[in-house]
């Protein structure tokens, strides 16, 4: 240990030096508080043995000053005093002294006090080492977490770049959508495009799981399901929805995870919609102010090799609205349970006369109210209006 002796009496300095040396510690000497304060700014000590009465700065003032300063380590303070009044001890303790010794110092007693200081200093340095180790672990964990969060954000952004145009005002279809990935980044995605002059393709899917793997798979799927892909078109016409799902099922069967898909092909001349529902929630058709859900389910994609996919069709008419959504909305959890498809239908039917975008905004607002606590699932809903 390094001990700083602060005493203005040379004879006392000498006695303390001898004792400390005998106990095997290093020492330095100052003859008043001010001098000691200056030295403490330059050197690190473990223990300060300080006299009470000194010129310039007395011992109690020095103790107070030390305690109000942040050295980054603990200094053990022993106050030497010839005073033995109870009130003096209290004043010394209030100033921050750890221990007391009487003047003139006696070897045996002082040795015990120094050993006490040594124990405390050892504990202090162990604590400091542990604290340092924890801090460095915390720093590296924070770095890992930040880099993961950054990766997730980047993955989300690259996925968002693949989204279609926000407002599509085609003939005879207009589309609007909402897309908001959760902070964990789920595997939701939606898309639509004009395949040729007679067909509009649209789909929504939801890859099981969260995070980068789900986002990667979403990206892969989006690239597979594009305008120029042979998965989507054959002989210049659209491939049948059920066949698209079956092909995807074979392609991804080796993976551990799966996805749900709703894939539709709209003939823009006849307004016949052909679609496949692969484990995805049933789309809502709003017609003449009333709502009904299309389809009654179907196997998800790449979950089972025995899965078969059925094509369904419906003839749409002018004014019809079709909403394709993922379970992030219907599963949204409130105090009274999940939001559910029925409430979704009520809100969207209630807004059937309002502009398409307004109906989506109203739904988002309602679901937000439903989940009074944080709602952080993926939101994707694609709306088409004939």
């Amino acid at each position, binding site marked *: 240990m390094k001990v700083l002796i602060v005493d203005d009496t040379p004879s006392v300095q000498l006695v303390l030096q001898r004792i400390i040396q005998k106990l095997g510690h290093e020492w330095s000497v100052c003859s008043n508080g001010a001098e000691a304060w200056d030295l403490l700014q330059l050197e690190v000590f473990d223990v300060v043995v300080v006299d009470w009465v000194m010129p310039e700065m007395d011992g109690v003032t020095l103790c107070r000053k030390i305690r109000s300063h942040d050295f980054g380590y603990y200094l053990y303070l022993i106050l030497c005093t010839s005073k033995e009044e109870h009130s003096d001890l209290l004043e010394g303790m209030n100033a921050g002294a750890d221990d007391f010794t009487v003047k003139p110092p006696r070897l045996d007693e002082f040795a015990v006090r120094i050993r006490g200081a040594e124990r405390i200093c050892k504990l202090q340095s162990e604590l400091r080492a542990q604290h340092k180790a924890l801090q460095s672990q915390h720093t590296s964990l924070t770095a890992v977490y930040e880099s993961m969060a950054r990766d997730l954000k980047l993955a989300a952004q690259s996925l968002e770049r693949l989204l279609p145009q926000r407002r599509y005002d085609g003939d005879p279809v207009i589309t609007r959508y909402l897309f908001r990935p959760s902070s964990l980044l789920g595997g939701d995605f939606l898309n639509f495009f004009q395949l040729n002059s007679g067909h509009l393709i649209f789909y929504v899917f939801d890859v*099981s*799981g969260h995070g980068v793997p789900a986002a990667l798979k979403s990206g892969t799927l989006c690239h597979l399901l594009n305008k120029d892909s042979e998965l989507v078109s054959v002989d210049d016409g659209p491939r049948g929805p059920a066949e698209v799902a079956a092909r995807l099922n074979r392609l991804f069967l080796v993976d551990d995870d799966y996805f*749900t898909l709703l894939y539709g092909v709209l003939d823009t001349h006849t307004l016949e919609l052909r679609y496949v529902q692969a*484990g995805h*929630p049933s789309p809502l058709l709003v017609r003449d102010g009333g709502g009904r859900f299309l389809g009654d389910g179907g*196997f*998800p994609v790449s979950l089972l090799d025995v*899965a078969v996919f059925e094509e369904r069709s419906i003839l749409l008419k002018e004014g019809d609205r079709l909403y394709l959504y993922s379970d992030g909305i219907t599963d949204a959890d409130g105090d009274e349970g999940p939001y559910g498809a029925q409430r979704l239908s009520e809100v969207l039917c209630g807004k059937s006369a309002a502009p398409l975008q307004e109906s989506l905004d109203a739904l988002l607002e309602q679901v937000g109210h439903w989940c009074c606590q944080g709602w952080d699932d993926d939101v994707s809903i694609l709306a088409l209006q004939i």
Partner: protein
Amino acid sequence: MDIQSETIGDTLVAGLKKKRLLTADSEAFKERMTALFEGHEGPVVLDLAEVEFIDSSGLGAVVALFKMRQEMGGLQLARLQPNVKSLLKLTRLDRIFVVHETLD
């Protein structure tokens, strides 16, 4: 992951004591169940009486376990709550799984 299991005859009944089977739990659930399968050759019944909600990864885990047991007497489900039942209907898995209304 709290799963209570007992063997009745040649059937292993495993009850999942959890309200929600979510992405975060699905790996642990799969591991625990796989450990229970160890050394058991008959059918396994997964009792979901307490499970109110299963998310997509949770469902993936149940199907993975089903595949694992296909050659070994199968994995059946029992006592589904309405929400879980409709999830199975939506995904057509009600046609794949044998589902029991009770544990009898």
